[in-house]
């Protein structure tokens, strides 16, 4: 009897925050009433190991059943029976303190299920955790026959990309043995990390990261650009190690870094275990539970799920695979039961291997899987954002190469289109098109990465033998077979997919499963409600293209032409046009420099006259080009008691007529002497990161909280201002900002000029021919 064999024992579980680990802990607590469980948990950056136990393990819906059974006693029962050991198998010595080490070595059984299961983990991470983790754990347990029984969870795919039978035997005893030396692999992986890091710091690479950051964020100011460039460098290093991991694995005959590091991890463990009692359990692809703790329970969004959801959303037009090939899927509760059976039976003389897989006992053919999925999603379609059902694509089982080529081509085409759109000066809804293009490209890239990562799992032709597992099954009595079922023959694939797994995946993915238009407030309405909530403190507004469809150049042109004759106007136009390219380039580089250069145009202008003309311009240009919705928004904020602030690089005399609209205005100011304007700024203009500082200073002085504040701006050069507040709003965003806003879920407003506004081709003042008006 499994329950009796394990009763009173202390059993440790590593990787308890993972899918399999959580299920193990739950099953032990629920079905082996008298055992104690010790979980080895890595302390997080923000949470201690104990806190992670509560939040990430015990609060998982896996425990709902146990919670219901125990009622009020749940907390007492779990705190009595579960102990936490702080540790990290990715570190030398497993990062244990003395107490932890004592607790761990005092266990009867240690189930090692901690692993980096991501197929695209960076090589060095996978090596540290998957290759070295088991050996480190073994060393910590002490390598004597009296040490705890170690059950190491590996994967059936250590067999690699090979055809034919894969027996339940140690790797060294199988035809799949590789002669690669794990020590050399570890050293190489560590070297690869430092090489990639060094490479990423070469001047031309650093310049490239900076350039890419600028291309993404525009003139967002030095601190933001630096932060972004550094992140790009990190990502680049990681990407290098990911692709290195994949190629290295494939060069040795494994589909990916996961299987490769797991395989060498098994070998290292055999070398390092000494006389430690050891059993290796190799599950195939673990998916949602067949019955325990409830049908369909799953944790995390794993390997098959994103592929399934992409397929159901019609995004994955093709997926390679061999139609008659076997997809080896095994429900998590079968794996748990098998491990507990192994634990109950105790270690053999020599390390034993059990494979938990369905492929030979109850095979699921790839074409069967696809047709089951197709029929289910045809009956239970997902719905697009307009509430229309999505028709799933028909897969024709093409070769992997063909699909990859198609997807690569699609991705490249979309990237080119995206680059083109990005280069155009688009705003608002049109910029959204470009940001949607980016989304499409990312979808194509994601589809490609699924094909690259998981393609081989639909093409596997290895047949995982389960003879030993079945003889273990034979040895169980009827009660155990009822309670701890792990015979793959019980799986009815149609039932499992249609009634258990697919419904569970769809629920997990939180996709639309109901038809019809949205009820309740739309996303835009919710966003609007959030920014206008009464508890907001401050609303800061940019001016140009946020509240008015105009800019400093237009207002200058208007003021400058107010008193020019026809001929002078033409000369003015020509001269200005000549300057445009240079000015545009400068503006793209640095808004502050541009303003500084541009405002020199005002040098020597008669101050009083410009001031008087600016009042005329207020109606003729500023209001005529204003966004009425924007102006109403300023007023809405004010009427709710929020402080309103205009932050603009425009000069004071131009924005003076707008003063009554806002509580305060921060703008550029030009110096004056003897009634003449000097073309130089009194203070640095509020642009880029200076805006964030201005806002911070303003909020501090006025006792307002930035996290309760709203900022409205239109361009990525306003990012510092937008990032400084709790509620950023992108108004008519240009392509870069549109992309950023969409990614970060920022509220977006598309404000337009009034349909009846007067329009003029050139921003020139109506000519004063007859007299000067005072």
């Amino acid at each position, binding site marked *: 009897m499994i329950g009796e064999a394990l009763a009173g024992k202390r059993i440790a579980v590593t990787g308890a925050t993972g899918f399999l680990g959580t299920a193990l802990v739950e099953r032990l607590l629920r079905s082996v009433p008298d055992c104690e469980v010790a979980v080895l948990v890595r302390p997080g950056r923000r949470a201690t190991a104990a806190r992670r136990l509560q939040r990430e393990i015990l609060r998982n819906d896996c425990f709902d059943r146990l919670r219901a059974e125990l009622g009020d006693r749940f907390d007492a029962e779990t705190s009595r029976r579960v102990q936490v050991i702080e540790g990290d198998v990715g570190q030398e010595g497993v990062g244990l303190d003395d107490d932890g080490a004592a607790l761990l070595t005092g266990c009867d059984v240690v189930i090692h299920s901690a692993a980096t299961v991501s197929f695209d983990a960076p090589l060095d991470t996978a090596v540290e955790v998957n290759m070295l983790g088991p050996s480190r754990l073994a060393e910590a347990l002490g390598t004597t026959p009296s040490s705890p029984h170690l059950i190491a969870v590996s994967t059936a795919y250590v067999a690699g990309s090979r055809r034919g039978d894969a027996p339940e035997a140690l790797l060294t005893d199988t035809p799949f043995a590789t002669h690669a030396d794990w020590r050399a692999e570890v050293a190489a992986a560590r070297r690869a990390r430092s090489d990639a890091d060094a490479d990423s710091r070469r001047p031309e690479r650093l310049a490239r990261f900076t350039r890419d950051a600028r291309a993404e964020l525009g003139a967002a100011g030095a601190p933001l650009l630096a932060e972004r460039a550094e992140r790009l460098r990190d990502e680049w290093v990681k990407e290098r190690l990911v692709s290195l991991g994949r190629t290295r694995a494939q060069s040795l005959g494994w589909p990916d870094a996961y299987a490769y590091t797991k395989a060498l991890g098994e070998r290292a463990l055999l070398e390092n275990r000494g006389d430690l009692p050891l059993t290796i359990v190799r599950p195939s692809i673990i998916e949602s539970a067949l019955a325990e703790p409830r049908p369909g329970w799953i944790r995390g969004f794993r390997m098959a799920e994103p592929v399934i959801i992409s397929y159901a959303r019609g995004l994955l037009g093709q997926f390679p695979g061999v139609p008659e090939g076997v997809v080896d899927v095994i429900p998590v509760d079968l794996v748990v039961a098998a491990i507990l059976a192994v634990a109950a039976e105790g270690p053999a003389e020599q390390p034993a291997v059990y494979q938990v897989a369905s492929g030979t006992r109850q095979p699921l053919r790839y074409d069967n899987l696809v047709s089951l999925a197709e029929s289910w999603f045809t009956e239970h379609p997902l719905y697009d954002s307009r509430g229309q059902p999505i028709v799933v694509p028909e897969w024709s089982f093409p070769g992997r190469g063909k699909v990859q080529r198609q997807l690569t081509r699609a991705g490249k085409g979309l990237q080119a289109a995206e680059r083109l759109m990005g280069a155009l000066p688009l705003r608002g809804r049109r910029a959204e098109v470009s940001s949607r293009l980016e989304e499409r490209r990312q979808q194509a890239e994601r589809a490609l990465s699924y094909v690259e990562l998981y393609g081989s799992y639909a093409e596997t032709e290895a047949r995982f033998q389960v003879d030993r597992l079945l003889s273990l099954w034979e040895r169980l009595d009827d009660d155990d077979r009822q309670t701890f079922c792990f015979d793959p023959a019980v799986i009815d694939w149609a039932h499992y997919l249609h009634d258990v797994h697919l419904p569970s995946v769809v629920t997990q993915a939180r996709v639309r499963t109901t038809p019809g238009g949205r009820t309740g407030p739309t996303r835009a309405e919710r966003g609007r409600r959030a920014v206008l909530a009464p508890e907001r403190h401050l609303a800061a507004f940019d001016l140009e293209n946020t509240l008015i469809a105009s800019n400093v150049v237009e207002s200058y042109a208007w003021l400058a032409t107010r008193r020019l004759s026809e001929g002078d106007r033409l000369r003015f136009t020509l001269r200005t046009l000549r300057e445009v390219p240079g000015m545009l380039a400068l503006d793209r580089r640095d808004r502050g420099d541009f303003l500084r250069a541009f405002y020199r145009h005002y040098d020597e202008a008669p101050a009083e006259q410009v001031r008087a003309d600016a009042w005329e311009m207020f109606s003729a240009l500023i*209001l005529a080009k204003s966004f009425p919705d924007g102006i109403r928004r300023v007023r809405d904020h004010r009427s709710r008691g929020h402080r309103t602030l205009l932050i603009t690089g425009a000069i004071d005399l131009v924005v003076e007529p707008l003063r009554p609209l806002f509580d305060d205005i921060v703008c550029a100011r030009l110096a004056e002497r003897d009634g003449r304007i000097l073309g130089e700024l009194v203070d640095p203009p509020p642009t880029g990161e200076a805006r964030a500082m201005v806002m911070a200073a303003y909020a501090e002085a006025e006792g307002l909280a930035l996290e309760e504040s709203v900022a409205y701006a239109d361009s990525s050069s306003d990012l510092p201002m937008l990032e400084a507040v709790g509620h950023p709003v992108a108004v008519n965003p240009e392509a870069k900002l549109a992309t950023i806003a969409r990614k970060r879920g920022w509220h977006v407003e598309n404000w337009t000029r009034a349909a009846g506004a007067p329009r003029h081709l050139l921003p020139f003042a109506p000519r004063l021919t007859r*007299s000067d008006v005072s």
Partner: protein
Amino acid sequence: MSPRPGFVLEVDRSTPATLIWHGEGFRLERLPVGSRVVYPPEALSPLEDPDAAIRHALLHPLGDSEPLPALLRPGMRLTIAFDDISLPLPPMRSPDVRQRVIEAVLDMAATAGVDDVVLVAALALHRRMTEDELRHIVGDRVYDAFAPHGLLTQHDAEDPDGMLHLGLTDAGEDVEINRRAATSDLVVYVNIDLVPMDGGHKSVATGLASYRSLRHHHNVRTMQHSRSFMDQHRSELHSSNWRMGRHIAASGVKVFQIETTLNNDTFPDQFRFLQRREWEWSVRDRAGFLAVSKSLERTPERLARSIFQSIRAPHAVTSVQAGEVEAVHTRAAEHLHTQQSVEVAGQTDVLTMGLPYLCPYNVNSVMNPVLVMCLGLGYLFNMYRGKPLVRPGGALIMSHPTPWAFDPVHHPSYIDFFEQVLPETTDPLEIEAKYEEAFATDPWYVHLYRTGHAYHGVHPFYMWYWGAHALQHLGAVIVVGGDRRAVRRLGFKPASGLGDALEMAEDVVGADPSITHLHAPPLLMANVS
């Protein structure tokens, strides 16, 4: 041949299609047989020498008034107030009759040695005019002589130092008018009476007043008790203005009133067909109609708007009268009625009208939906004496594109009124009670009214009140060819064509309704028996 009076045509099988205005355009529609079409009288013959007529009027005043020269003396304060750009429609060709009158008055003032003279554009809560617009009204000579010295002003009802409260009328109404006018020895008010509502005591009591004063008669109750506000003797609007006017006089403000009337000659030669009866169209009229409507089809909306806005009417002066306010107004109203009155027998179930591109408040800008409501239900509906053209519970069908378009410079508060008030309610009383004060006292609107070229914050409310009587009276309002969303926002029903609209109207007024079409502009006043 003397001009023919107005005329009611009964449509029969041989009647040609009727021209129906539709914003910046018009179309020919066949009205059902048996429908009536009310045509305005033809343009009266103009005065041969308007300048001589002006001098004559100033020297031979009506009522209890001395001739103007006798009222002028050296050292006095003289204020000349004049109607703003809302009159006449379309703006008249130069020289504007106001220019002629003002020049004549200034001549007499100069002769009398008056040198404290200020001109005030009587804006009430209308928008400030631009330099070009002012020049058009007063002429370059007057503009260049006064404007550079700050002596050509525009009434600012929100200038705390520019207004003077003259106390309350017997009915408890605040009387607050322009301080310069109130403290002058003589106010000369130069009017153009386009419709019978204009002129009389309304000139000073409204044109030079503030919100505080105006709210006593520009409100829903007054409008619902004016049947109509175009008929002075049945208009609560006028009763209130008359009380205020008499109170102003009693407060010692001397007003010398000048009212001019114009004939119906509304459109220039190339648009002559607009003021002719369709069955009398000559080959030239037909060609003109074809040319204009074909080219409009190809013209972008915005360009069409600026072409129409540039129309200058050939309006000619038919009368000038000066002197004591009430006597002057009575005489001027008679002249107006001669030009505009049409006898109509009995009310109709369905009244149809085509709305043109222009109303008093969108000179040089777009006619927004709120103004569409005001022109149809405020102005044209109320052009009656006796009974409304349409019976109680009847249907009004208006043809206008009703674009969702606003001028953000001229009509900023209209945009917010349309976006914030109308979605909540279209009931004038509720609108007045819940929203008027906030808009009227909003500092941003006040700022735009005073420093920009914006109508006052409360102005869209007045537009809505102007239609309050019609809203109360009518069973349905249907707009043909309008922006559906905008029409619904107004609380009206959109229809794609006149035929559909008539079908919809039958749901309200019953089968086989009587139909009357108001063929205006040119403007007409229906005497409904």
